[in-house]
């Protein structure tokens, strides 16, 4: 794993992030900081701005205002430095239907600059971790939605990135697959050097894998705390906290 020597630099630092589309504002003035090694759940109802935020963090789209730094590198000024450090699973797995699983993973590994001598081992490792090694030679067109999702996850794991950004990684999976992906994320997060930000609208998911929760609703951050602190402070289950905060935020948004 390529690591920066200074662990004190936050893995992800977001300041005053705003994204306005032509007709609406998706996120307003988001600020948060995620330390190296944290596993953070990015929680919010559909349309809250989770995907937009993640797309900005990964350098897919620029913010209207605000800054994003990954390990101290500004995503607009040093996009290559950021992209080298981030593994990203978009909302819809970015797979080519006409490629085999292994062909696809090799292509992505080359794109990410994995050396020729390490290519085979690296692809095998990621495929093994995401649980797609046994379907390596199948065309992606012919594998189920759940497997496509896992191929997308394998792709994000290539080049062993220090920051993983996963946009709804368990959507479309069956209960057994969901449990497998969650345990994989827990296992990946156990590495103290790896930072994971995953978005979801499923409360159990954050409960199951995350130490910390950033809750957004209506484009605002409505809570940012550990799971325990959040439920203690509101003296309620996460469901109730979430419902209460989301409703307040919706009302506050013009």
């Amino acid at each position, binding site marked *: 794993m390529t690591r920066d020597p200074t662990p004190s630099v936050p893995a992800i630092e977001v300041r005053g992030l705003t994204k306005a589309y032509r007709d609406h504002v998706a996120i307003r003035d988001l600020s948060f900081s995620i330390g190296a090694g944290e596993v953070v759940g990015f929680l919010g109802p559909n349309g809250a701005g989770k995907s937009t935020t993640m797309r900005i963090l990964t*350098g897919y789209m620029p913010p209207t205002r605000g800054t994003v730094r990954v390990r101290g590198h500004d995503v607009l000024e040093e996009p290559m430095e950021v992209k080298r450090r981030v593994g990203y699973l978009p909302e819809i797995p970015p797979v080519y239907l006409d490629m085999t699983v292994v062909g696809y993973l090799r292509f992505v590994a080359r794109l990410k600059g994995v050396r020729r001598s390490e290519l085979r081992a690296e692809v095998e490792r990621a495929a093994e971790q995401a649980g797609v090694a046994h379907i390596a030679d199948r065309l992606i067109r012919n594998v189920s939605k759940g497997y496509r999702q896992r191929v997308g996850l394998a792709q994000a794991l290539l080049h062993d990135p220090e920051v993983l950004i996963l946009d709804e990684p368990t959507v479309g999976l069956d209960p057994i697959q969901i449990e497998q992906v969650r345990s994989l994320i827990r296992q990946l997060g156990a590495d103290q050097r790896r930072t994971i930000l995953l978005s979801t609208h499923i409360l159990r998911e954050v409960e199951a894998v995350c130490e910390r929760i950033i809750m957004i609703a209506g484009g605002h951050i409505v809570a940012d705390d550990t799971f325990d602190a959040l439920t203690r402070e509101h003296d309620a289950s996460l469901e109730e906290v979430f419902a209460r905060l989301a409703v307040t935020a919706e009302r506050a948004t013009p």
Partner: protein
Amino acid sequence: MKAWVIARKELGVFFTTATGYAGFGAYAFLMGLLFISALNRYQQLTQYYLSQQRPDLLETLNFNDTILTPMFSSGVWMFLFFVPFLTMRLFAEEKSGRTFELLMTAPVTSWDLVLGKFLAAGAMVVMLAAIPVAFPLILEAYGTAPGTGSSVEWSPVWSALGFTALLGLSFVAIGLWMSASTDSQLMAALLTFGILLMGYILPMIAGRLEGDWRVVLEYASPVNHVSRGIQGRVLLEDLVYFASITLASLFYAQRVVESHRWR
């Protein structure tokens, strides 16, 4: 250079799906038809001049001017239909299939993407353009012209093949640019076809005009530039013309891809 990684993937798609083989097959078949019809005409003229006892006219017939040049000239029209199919998916498919997000968040530049895709589609069009080399080889293997006893003169053939390839490369660059500009493959193909068709009909419009406009339109169309090359005349201005079209289109394609990072 990550462009090569992109190019390799694109070539893989051409050859693992039927697209590549179907394209080569169809192009070879159609060029074959053009060759056979030019060959027939050549035979008819030969027989006619022989029956008329006109050795002077017979001497004007040779493989290059009577068979190959007409074949290449008609063949140039083929790219108008082949190139839009070749280039339509390059970027449009990535965008509609959501893989564009993968490319844009990978540590590669917009130039890598554009050049990689151009290299792949460009290699395909150069391979297409090389197919008709089979026909002068056949002529050389099986015959000499009865009037002069000459066989194929190769330098105009190389020039024709080279200019056909240059034309193809400039068309591919335009198609790439159009594909980068839309999410829809159909739209990309139609836009490319429209622009290329414009190039072919400009000289017809120019023919009705006089003065400066005529010169401008004739220069803008690829038809005259490629015709000279097919006749074996290699002029710097024609090389510059195709290089300019290609580079300008690639430049615009790169700007369009890069602009996605600013929306």
